[in-house]
């Protein structure tokens, strides 16, 4: 038999080409911004030149305890991320299992996903006080809906033939879940966790900013109030770094759990 291997869905490591193009694109955008600002086309009192932001990076590392704040924000995101994965996936599985619950609640969860939940921070301040739990809970609350919805979607989209394979092997309900439904739904669940983490990160930093407490969000408030524009943008770079670290880690976890799609 001479069947050919027709396709490969194994993730190919990013080759040098796309990386170079990506970095070159970023550098070109920064150079363009630098030129526009230095030439006076863009107001430097609204957008600081990238060169000033790069200088400010070192300054805020030395004088603003950026690493401590980075770890604090990252820690809050990590706790919110772990909780939203746990509660979101379990919530989605339970809602998928009990159709009445799904029919009753799915619209509400979808509405929650679209709502500006960050506006609830005064309520959370009253409930938890001005501390780290207000920030974590704000992150958790905003990250839950997409995780729940995507978990339901992943479970519901499992191909019927795979379920029938399980049935033909006489699988118990528990075996059917762990051996077929869950691994089949995993890629979609990870999309939900990614979305949840995005929402959580936005809300963690946003709440830090609003209540002026904690890590990088609070630092951005301080720097903005001092009208240190370059410092503010430099702090935002560290927020982006938190996001990058989380997504790279999540991708590793996904590859470990499911080596191919």
């Amino acid at each position: 038999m001479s069947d050919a291997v027709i396709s490969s869905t194994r993730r190919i490591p990013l080759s040098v080409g796309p990386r170079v193009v990506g970095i070159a694109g970023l550098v070109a955008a920064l150079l363009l911004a630098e030129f526009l600002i230095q030439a006076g086309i863009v107001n430097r009192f609204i957008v600081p030149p990238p060169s000033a932001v790069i200088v400010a990076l070192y300054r805020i590392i030395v004088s603003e305890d950026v690493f401590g704040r980075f770890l604090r924000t990252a820690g809050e995101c990590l706790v919110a991320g772990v909780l939203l994965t746990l509660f979101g996936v379990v919530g989605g599985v339970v809602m998928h299992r009990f159709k009445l619950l799904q029919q009753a609640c799915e619209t509400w969860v979808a509405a929650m996903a679209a709502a500006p939940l960050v506006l609830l921070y005064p309520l959370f301040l009253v409930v938890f006080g001005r501390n780290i739990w207000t920030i974590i809970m704000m992150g958790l609350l905003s990250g839950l809906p997409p995780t729940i919805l995507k978990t339901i979607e992943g479970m519901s989209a499992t191909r019927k033939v795979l379920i029938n394979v399980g049935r033909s092997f006489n699988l118990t309900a528990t075996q059917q879940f762990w051996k077929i439904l869950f691994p089949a739904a995993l890629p979609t669940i990870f999309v939900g966790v990614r979305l949840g983490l995005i929402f959580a990160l936005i809300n963690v930093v946003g709440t830090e900013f609003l209540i002026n407490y904690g890590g990088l969000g609070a630092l951005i408030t301080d720097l903005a109030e001092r009208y240190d524009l370059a410092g503010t943008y430099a702090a935002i770079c560290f927020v982006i770094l938190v996001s990058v670290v989380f997504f790279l880690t999540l991708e590793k976890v996904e590859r470990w759990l499911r080596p191919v799609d």
Partner: protein
Amino acid sequence: MATGDAILSVDDIVVRFDTAEGPITAVDDVSFKVRPGEFLSVIGPSGCGKSTLFNVIGGLLSEHEGVVSVAGETIDGPHKSIGMVFQEESTFPWRTVTDNVAFPLELIGAPRDKRIERARHFIKLVGLDGFENRYPGELSGGMRQRVSLARTLASEPKILLMDEPFAALDEQTRLLLGDKVLQIQQSLKQTTLLITHNITEAVQMSDRILVMTYRPGRVKRIVDIDLPRPRSSEIVTSAAFGRYVAEIWNDLREEASRGMQDEESHVLHHQGAAP
């Protein structure tokens, strides 16, 4: 054939479905028996209830009249004696070929090294040695169907039940896979029930062919295929093969025409009903 000779008995199966247009009888009073080691094909036009019958025999469809029994034991639901191979691609994309094939052994709690050893045996049997650590996404459609076949064989069923397993494949691959299935069936003396709409495939592989009528699906007749064994796809060029194909097509043509007319009147009816 006496009931005692049969490893699989299908008796008086009737399946009705409620549809928007009222109840329809998909399968009506179907009875047949399969002998140990026999290769029986069930052939019929689209809509004759072949896949419904597959689900009834496999235990996936419990709402039916009549009885299915394996070696005299009435079965009600999926049974370890019946291994199913589905028409749709059914490998687990998150498992390697070895882990896919070892799946039924994992379910019975076989130790890992034993599982791997048995899985490799069946992988070799379907001609996929060298692909043990590949994922289904890296294989062609024909190779994936062989993985499904190996996985089912690994559960060592008494009866192999296949529902148009090569329907999605091109004709050449289908013929070559037919050879592979025949080799396996003959080497294991595996009782096999194949559901198909492909006459060539049925004649190439079967000892007997059960021809079904168009809706409601009934047994029209059973044809004995008296071609020499071992067979391969080369047999399709023989005159005897051609005669069997023509004979079965004669039976099927009327049913297929009825099916086509029924579909056309269905479409016309819906178009007429549409605003």
